[in-house]
């Protein structure tokens, strides 16, 4: 019945903008940074002590802004709380409000417990605005005994243990949202949550390496070589797993050659040729693989290790962003008729433009800078 007008008139409009690319990107950074902090607090990786506090606060700062892209994307941001007030439990999205709130509460409590000795001490010694902030943060309790500190340490470890599955659920669920869209063959795969989670760990570790190198440079101290090497090893391992899973999924689709492969192969070879083939695979995965392989060699001079790890970190942050981009945008630019492609509109200005996206990415770093002024992110490495 070709006379019944065209079949998919909703296809030309691409509803999910760059904000929906940013949302999994930022939550991924949260999950990845938390995993590093858990490696220290739970798995006693003492070598990561210099970045343990930084990792925890980084996770909190990014988590605080994880929902901002969604709010900008919504045309009625004031309705955001409806998902909590009146949840539809059969909707995957309704889980987000509860998982996110549980996770940010857990992060807040853990950060508070980790820094409580400093907060209590400064509540007594600082005056002015900073003194007020510390006194508010101390919640009216201005003394710490050995037993209370021991109890806090036990709680910190317990929260870190609970936080690992919570972080995995938080980010695995983001992948689940895409993987559960059965009408979209580019998204609908059970591997999607796993791929999102592992690439989240990649982006989190990469961001931590860069932040650690940057803050060390700003403070005029040498980065702990063992810590950077260890982070690089974890990054290398995570990259290998993430990249293997991404390629496995692709090979699986190609080998199956189902009806949708026709449009997906055109999508990859023509429309995403640069962002997937060049950025995500070549520059973002293959090059950092070799950089990290060299960087993790034990006898490498620290300056070279830092340079190679830092460069790999930058490339991997780009890679994970490209991965989110290719998933979110790639899944929307082919018609669900599997017969054509549409353009993805990308603008500089506006609520969902590139400038707004840039500001959102900078805001967690501003918060981290503010946190570094309030809390001793390096205390554990130097004490």
């Amino acid at each position, binding site marked *: 019945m070709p006379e019944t007008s065209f079949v998919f008139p909703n296809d030309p409009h691409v509803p999910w903008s760059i904000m929906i690319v940013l949302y999994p990107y930022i939550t991924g950074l949260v999950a990845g940074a938390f995993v590093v902090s858990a490696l220290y607090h739970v798995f006693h990786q003492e070598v990561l002590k210099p970045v343990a506090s930084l990792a925890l606060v980084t996770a909190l700062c990014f988590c605080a802004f994880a929902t901002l892209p969604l709010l900008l994307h919504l045309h009625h941001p004031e309705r955001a709380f409806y998902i909590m*007030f009146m949840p539809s439990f059969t909707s995957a999205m309704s889980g987000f409000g509860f998982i996110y709130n549980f996770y940010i509460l857990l992060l807040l409590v853990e950060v508070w417990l980790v820094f*409580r000795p400093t907060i209590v001490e400064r509540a007594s010694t600082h005056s002015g605005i900073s003194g007020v902030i510390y006194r508010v943060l101390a*919640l009216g*309790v201005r003394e710490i*005994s050995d037993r209370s500190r021991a109890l806090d340490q036990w*709680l910190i470890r317990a929260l870190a243990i609970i936080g690992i599955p919570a972080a995995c659920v938080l980010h695995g669920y983001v992948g689940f949202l895409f993987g559960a869209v059965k009408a979209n063959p580019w998204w609908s795969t059970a591997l999607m949550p796993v791929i999102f989670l592992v690439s989240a760990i990649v982006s989190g570790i990469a961001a931590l390496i860069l932040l650690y190198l940057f803050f060390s440079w700003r403070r005029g101290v040498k980065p702990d070589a063992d810590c950077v090497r260890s982070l690089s090893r974890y990054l290398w391992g995570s990259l290998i797993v993430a990249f293997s899973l991404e390629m496995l999924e692709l090979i699986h689709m190609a080998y199956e050659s189902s009806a949708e492969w026709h449009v997906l192969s055109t999508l990859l070879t023509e429309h995403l040729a640069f962002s997937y083939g060049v950025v995500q695979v070549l520059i973002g995965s293959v090059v950092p693989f070799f950089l990290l392989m060299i960087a993790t060699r034990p006898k490498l001079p620290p300056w070279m290790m830092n340079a190679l790890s830092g460069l790999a970190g930058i490339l991997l942050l780009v890679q994970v962003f490209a991965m989110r981009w290719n998933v979110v945008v790639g899944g929307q630019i082919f018609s669900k008729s599997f*017969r*054509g492609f*549409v353009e993805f509109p990308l603008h500089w200005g506006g609520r969902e433009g590139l400038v707004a996206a840039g500001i959102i990415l900078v805001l967690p770093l501003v918060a981290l800078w503010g946190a570094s002024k309030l809390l001793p992110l390096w205390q554990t490495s130097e004490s």
Partner: protein
Amino acid sequence: MNWIRAFVRDTRHLWTLLFLVVASGAGFLFVRSKMIPESFGQYGPYRATAMTDLAALPSRFQADATCLECHEDVGEERAEAVHITVRCVHCHGLGEEHIVQARKAAESSDVSIDPASDWDGDFMTKIDLYITKDRATCLACHESVVGMPEDFQKIDVAEHLEEMGAGEPEDPETCFECHGGHDTAP
């Protein structure tokens, strides 16, 4: 009793924290109880009375059969044409007031029917009834866009007009040089 005092002292910060968390949770539940409409959840995760509210709205959509009660000639014209599948409202607007007037006019000769308006070029304005030969109306369906079936009558306007040798290619009503609206066969 010293151990009780010591326990309270050592855990006071945690009780304060717990109080804040519980108070926040209670605050959330209180606000939630005030925000949820009474009939929410009766049928599913939405306000049940929204169904009756919506059902009570007057129906604005007119079926073709209503139009063809009077416009029999159009029905005959379209009978064998490909546009048999296109609804009257697609090209002429809802016609809600028009039909109310027509029904009254059928009963009383004192009631007159307002003529159809000219289309203002915007599908989103709520003109009750319009007649247009503007090409934009045709191209709403026939302009080539992605995702359309290969065998659907889609055209690139400039290319099509040049190919067909249109006399007035810039004229908005140029489609009607060759095609009709109801029976579109050239």
